[in-house]
């Protein structure tokens, strides 16, 4: 078993097609209001220049929305933050496009769609949009993606003593790929983590331990059925703790034999 030093959660962001924003998500999780009846249109990535904005696929729009909101909530200028971007499947719409086009007319691949197909597209657009030379990483860990992202971000804080924005997202699958890589709706989350000084922010303590998936925390709130079919749904128990202003714990799976215990003050 090993633990990281406490980090401060300086900013939180959440965006789902039926829970478009952390304020709404939190209220629904806590049972204070019902989720909006209709789906919200995808967010507009306003921090991108027009050329990048018109090229941005759903994954980029979603990731940049939550990254920007988290940085605002943390009152941290984005350009200075290292970043961790994470997605279970990346841009499923573009993957479907690539496979379908390759099966039919491979020499007619759209250059724009190809350059948006890389797993680090959102991270690339983020650093371009914020003029940030700070390093980023882009990771994937299947159903353990969110847990891995939080751990990676907290590890960077522990090593460098600098704040990090952690962004995770998954979008809707289309076409035949959806039969093996299922995901519905858009779900994006972001956290700004920083070294913990004093008590002004909620603190997060992470521990890694051997264990079994049966021991993970189940999502229980009214938000759970809404996000359940999105590939990033395993993140929800973490946000259910965050939504309540009292201390709480969530246990997430980090790999087949490994658990991440997240304790929040």
């Amino acid at each position, binding site marked *: 078993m090993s633990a990281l030093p406490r980090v401060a959660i300086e900013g939180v962001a959440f965006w789902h097609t039926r829970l478009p924003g952390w304020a709404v998500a939190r209220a629904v999780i806590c049972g204070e209001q019902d989720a909006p009846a209709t789906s919200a249109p995808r967010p507009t990535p306003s921090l991108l220049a027009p050329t990048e904005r018109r090229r941005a696929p759903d994954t980029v729009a979603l990731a940049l929305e939550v990254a920007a909101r988290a940085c605002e909530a943390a009152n941290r200028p984005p350009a200075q933050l290292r970043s961790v971007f994470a997605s279970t*499947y990346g841009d499923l719409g573009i993957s479907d496009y*690539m496979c379908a086009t*390759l099966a039919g007319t491979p020499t007619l691949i759209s250059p724009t769609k190809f350059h948006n197909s890389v797993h*680090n597209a959102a991270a690339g657009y983020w650093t371009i949009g914020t003029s940030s030379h700070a390093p980023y990483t882009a990771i994937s860990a299947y159903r353990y993606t969110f847990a891995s992202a939080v751990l990676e971000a907290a*590890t960077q804080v522990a090593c460098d003593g600098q704040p990090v924005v952690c962004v995770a997202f998954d979008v809707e699958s289309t076409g035949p790929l959806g039969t*093996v890589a299922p995901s519905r709706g858009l779900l994006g989350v972001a956290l700004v983590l920083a070294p913990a000084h004093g008590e002004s922010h909620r603190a997060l303590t992470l521990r890694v331990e051997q264990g079994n998936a049966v021991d993970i925390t189940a999502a229980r709130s009214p938000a759970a059925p809404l996000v359940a079919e999105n590939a990033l749904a395993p993140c929800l128990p973490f946000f259910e703790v965050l939504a309540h202003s009292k201390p709480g714990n969530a246990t997430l799976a980090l790999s087949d034999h490994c658990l991440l215990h997240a304790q929040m003050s």
Partner: protein
Amino acid sequence: MAQPRFRPLRVTAYTVCTAAGIGRAATLTALDQRLSGLTRNDFGPSPLATWIGRVPGLEQCALPAQWAEWECRNNRLAWCGLVADDFADAVAAARERYGAERIAVVIGTSTASIGASEDAYRRLDPDGRYPADLRRPIVHTPHSLGDFVQHALALRGIALTVATACSSSAKVFGQAERLIRVGLADAAVVGGVDTLCGSTLFGFNSLELIASERCRPFDVARHGINIGEAAGFALLERGAEAGAWLLGYGESSDAHHMSAPHPEGVGARRAVQDALESAQLTPASIDYINLHGTASLKNDEVEARLVADLFPSRTFASSTKGWTGHTLGAAGIVEAAISLIALDNGLLPGTLNTEQLDPACGPQIRRENEQRRVQRALSFSFGFGGSNCVLALGRGDVG
């Protein structure tokens, strides 16, 4: 609380499999004898007119039956890498020393197994679903690779896949080092695997970045890249008593354009400087640089100027992509391994296929091989989306 300081890690085992050779010895022979692994493209149903770095025989090596769930070209090549140079045995011994849960798996890729989905789309069943042999969800996600490597090595700790295009399997070194530094792991398997597929061949073709002939890095007449496939792995340990060294690393973003490097190499220069600083080295102390050198017009122009500006004339710099092709998500580990081979054997590979160096090149960039004992190397990886990573590697004593 003060942050734990970076300390160099030992590289106690490593391996590399490319079109130029399977394993370190074959790779050394290819480098020494100037034997390129590039061949005319014959990959896929309607091959583009280009050259590729294809690892021969992958079609014949199915994964062992116990790994059937992960079967696909990318994981076959991963397996090929794991069994080369007794790498898996070295990990098994480390597993005994540290415990299976104390060895992290941090592996890079850009393709993962997308080729399997491409294949599925050409053979959809009448209902529009994947054919039965490809209905294996773990294959159709980027973590197909990291997950396979963790299972194949019987490890039980942290495992993740890094996908930052051409810097992926260089960044894994830094991410693993940090996990070890904070005590979440005692050792790590790092590396990367990318395989030939339609997405990268036709994707780079749509950007007009593919060369119709053998690629010629830094050549005045260069006209694009050749795609290659490769697998490579390294075992990093704290406190081991033998092996090469990961002396440091630097990472940055260009913040310029998704598919073109910053024209002044702002991010690349920063990554170089951060790598040198973390390794406590100066440019003058670097003996060998394995350049990114893709043979694209823009990368090589920016990189040549950066090298000429930052390093003294005696620094030996080259691109080895003329041997292997651009292995994209595996380029970081392949070129780190080639740098280690150079350090271990006193062989500095030149820049294969290149005939006339671009005038932008300074005296550092070399075409011919040289035999010389060397101690300190840098490996450059500059990727799509402006992700830059520079590794500092060494042999011998670390001050």
